[in-house]
């Protein structure tokens, strides 16, 4: 096993997580380099989303260690958690836009409150980010006036407004109609091209193959196989991965 010369931006060692008596994560070791794009695939119930949600503290793990940019995750320390979440952003399957705020205000809320920026700065930043995701003209629109794909792109802009070092994407296209998936994936691809560190749980295999540096196949709470996409797709080693790949190539 090659020992990394310098620690990755996300370092996970021996991570275990139980829900009651059910052990969902049975010991995860993962080191993510800065600028790396990692796609996490696997059957439902394999623990993919749980792992992702541990990284920004939405789930509390029971054993092991997790650190982001050298800072270990301290669940009890609310201030430390907030600092962590300024460096780690998340996009959700259900978008979770704030329905009572306009699109622009959705993007501006966190920088205004948390980074305590000035109004003109946040407005300018929000407009720039919305343009980046292709929704400049929707600044004053309400979330319920947008399509699913548009809402998800706003969610991406909202997360980017905090200038995170790492972006977590939890099945961000699974709730979208097929024809709207492309517009979201294009934005994610451009983020990857710009060097954003991305961890994505996804079912979009072609996208994962195209964009990711490493693929993580999870099965029954463990990382079963890990490696470049060509290696996992082209030469799966374990029967579980072989079965998984054949089941999705239907």
């Amino acid at each position: 096993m090659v020992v990394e010369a310098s620690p990755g931006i996300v370092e996970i060692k021996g991570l275990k997580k139980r829900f009651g008596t059910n052990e969902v994560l049975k010991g995860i070791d993962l080191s993510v380099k800065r600028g790396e794009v990692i796609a996490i695939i696997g059957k439902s119930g394999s623990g993919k989303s749980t792992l992702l949600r541990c990284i920004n503290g939405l789930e509390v793990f029971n054993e092991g260690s997790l650190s982001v940019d050298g800072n270990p995750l301290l669940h009890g320390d609310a201030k430390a958690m907030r600092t962590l979440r300024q460096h780690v952003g998340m996009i959700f399957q259900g978008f979770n836009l704030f329905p009572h705020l306009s699109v622009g205000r959705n993007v501006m809320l966190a920088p205004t409150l948390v980074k305590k920026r000035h109004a003109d700065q946040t407005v300018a930043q929000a407009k720039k980010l919305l343009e980046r995701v292709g929704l400049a003209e929707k600044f004053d629109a309400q979330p319920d006036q947008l399509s699913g794909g548009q809402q998800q792109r706003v969610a991406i802009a909202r997360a980017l407004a905090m200038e995170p070092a790492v972006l977590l994407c939890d099945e961000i296209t699974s709730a979208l109609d097929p024809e709207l998936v492309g517009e979201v994936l294009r934005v994610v691809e451009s983020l990857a091209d710009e060097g954003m560190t991305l961890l994505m749980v996804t079912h979009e295999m072609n996208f994962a193959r195209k964009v990711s540096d490493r693929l993580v196949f999870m099965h029954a709470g463990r990382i079963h196989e890990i490696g470049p996409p060509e290696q996992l797709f082209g030469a799966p080693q374990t029967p579980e991965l072989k079965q998984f790949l054949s089941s999705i190539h239907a």
Partner: protein
Amino acid sequence: MVDFSIWDIFRNLLLAARWTVLLSLIAFVGGGLVGLALLIARIAKVRGADTLVGGYVQLFQGTPLLMQLFFLFFGLASIGIPISQWTAAAIGLTLYTSAFLTEIWRGCVAAVGKGQWEASAALALSLREQLRYVIGPQALRVAVPPTVGFLVQVIKGTALASVIGFAELTKTGGMITNATFRPFTVYACVALMYFALCFPISAWSKSLERKLHRGR
């Protein structure tokens, strides 16, 4: 025997209704403030708050308002803590209202989806910021119809202050009945006056509810 006209009866009842309105407002506002404090204690996960507030709500929702008022006025007096009828009624109704409102509002906060908590947490908002900018506004929208509706319950609850002798609308109705020997007319008037107070508020609450669901 003096013959009282309906107008005489009405006039006296109207004067008494002032106290009903005043007591209702005090209980509603006071109960709202206490209820809000209890709710925030629960949300902020203050130690023991969940159990204590839960028990508090169980107590006031599981016992008659009549007994609560009896206890405050007669019960405390019997152990050497005499309080006036007005104070007993005000305190009793305030605590009663706070228990119901905190429970109603708890339901409204629970109605805001978990995704909103997660998204705002993921954006590094503190609990106070989450409540003020994301959860609060959404819970408030849902809370307005039932809160307005509960005001009707408070107004009806003030009628029980009559049993500890406080001269609000119901007690005054009883006194006028004794003076005029026209119980049917008097109590019909009393009922109509409560109706006049409560029905518009009930109707308003219903229309707020309709507007809320239309907006979705």
